[in-house]
């Protein structure tokens, strides 16, 4: 299934992420999460990378859950301190729904990250997306790891100057990240300018039409899968609105 046409994967990503934004009720979100997990494993996402990302985002996820639990006061109170309700049913449900939403987005990103860039570009080209735009999108996506490497290099260099990050207070950490962000962004801008010059020097955009050896073709399996996904999407949307 990992060799499924990138357009099918893109369609699946659109369905998952749209569902994640539309659904607010927990059972629907849980169903979507199952559907998303099934796709993630079938479409050959890099599970190790996904696990790593989940581990990295775990503190943020827990913070989001905590914020919902603390600030959503509606619903049946579940836990009290003296007479003050600390955890309510609605807060817990909303927290869980938001967590699932983030999880679905991460899984969708993992599936697209596991796809070959050239195949995605070829798929965009078949979808009549101008090459310039699709190329820019792919370059932007490629810049994310570069950005993250620059940032982690800066943090390593700083620690090797004797700074113990764990001992810094939250305020100092935030101030530090703000200070580090500027050179990292500046570095990314410099790299993008160099890349633009290099691309131009190689004749990028010199011809009105770009040809490619690589062509992606929708097989019967891809069409069937797209059809199934389409029907599932319509049924889920209809079900969500008509059978609350």
């Amino acid at each position: 299934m990992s060799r499924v046409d990138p357009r099918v994967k893109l369609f699946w990503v659109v369905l998952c992420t749209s569902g994640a934004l539309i659904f607010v009720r927990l059972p629907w979100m849980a169903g979507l999460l199952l559907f998303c997990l099934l796709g993630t494993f079938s479409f050959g996402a890099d599970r190790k990378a996904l696990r790593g990302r989940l581990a990295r985002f775990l503190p943020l996820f827990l913070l989001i859950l905590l914020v919902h639990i603390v600030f959503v006061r509606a619903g049946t109170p579940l836990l009290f301190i003296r007479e003050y309700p600390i955890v309510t049913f609605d807060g817990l449900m909303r927290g869980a729904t938001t967590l699932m939403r983030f999880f679905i987005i991460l899984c969708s990103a993992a599936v697209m990250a596991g796809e070959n860039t050239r195949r995605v570009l070829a798929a965009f080209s078949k979808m009549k997306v101008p090459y310039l735009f699709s190329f820019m999108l792919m370059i932007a996506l490629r810049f994310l790891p570069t950005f993250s490497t620059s940032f982690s290099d800066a943090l390593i260099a700083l620690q090797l100057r004797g700074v113990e990050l764990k001992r810094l207070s939250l305020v100092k950490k935030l101030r530090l990240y703000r200070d580090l962000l500027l050179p990292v962004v500046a570095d990314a801008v410099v790299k993008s300018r160099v890349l633009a010059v290099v691309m131009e020097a190689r004749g990028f955009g010199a011809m009105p039409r770009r040809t490619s050896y690589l062509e992606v073709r929708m097989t019967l399996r891809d069409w069937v899968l797209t059809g199934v996904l389409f029907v599932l999407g319509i049924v889920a949307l209809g079900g969500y609105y008509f059978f609350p």
Partner: protein
Amino acid sequence: MTVSISVTDLVFGYQKGNFTLSCPHLRLEQGKLGLITGANGSGKTTLAKLLCGILRPSGGSVQILGQATSELSLGEIGRQVGYLFQDPSRQLFAGTVWKEMTFVDHLLESEQGTSTKKAQDLLDRFGLGELKSRSTYFLSGGEKQRLALCTILMGEPRFLILDEPTVGLDKQNRVILYDILDDLLREGRGIAVITHENELIERFAGAPQIKVERGQVSL
């Protein structure tokens, strides 16, 4: 007792790919210089990153002053070992040369008087005294490298690991760098330099060469 970084039965492999680095024994002592040489992709930078704790060994151990790097945080290692990246821009964060020098002290709110004097002394010594208010983005390659070295020395580490410090430097800047290395050795710091440059190898001809070939480290 000689203070050192010592390596015993070190094995390291990246999660992706099948590259493995192994080093049965290595010792870097204070006041001495070691040259890490080898072809591109042989594992020199990996070895350097293991020596300063950026990478942690899969097997064996790297010990700094008798303590395994796996038991130390990067901040703790940083107080003993300084690392100069191949591209010094990666370790410069502040807007101006002066702010860069006092960046860590500001962050940690250290005693301003002492750090100011130390920063000024280092800049003067490395020929950057006149550039205090210059933006770090507008420094030349050689100046950036000297500044990066100055910022490392602000923490007074006992060891320095320099990753190809002569790359991109003209003759004049290379000579300045060699003189700086001589000074640092005289101060008693241990230095490991990754290099391809014959000139540097000849300049420090008496220094032991640590050869890295396809991940195998030998003296």
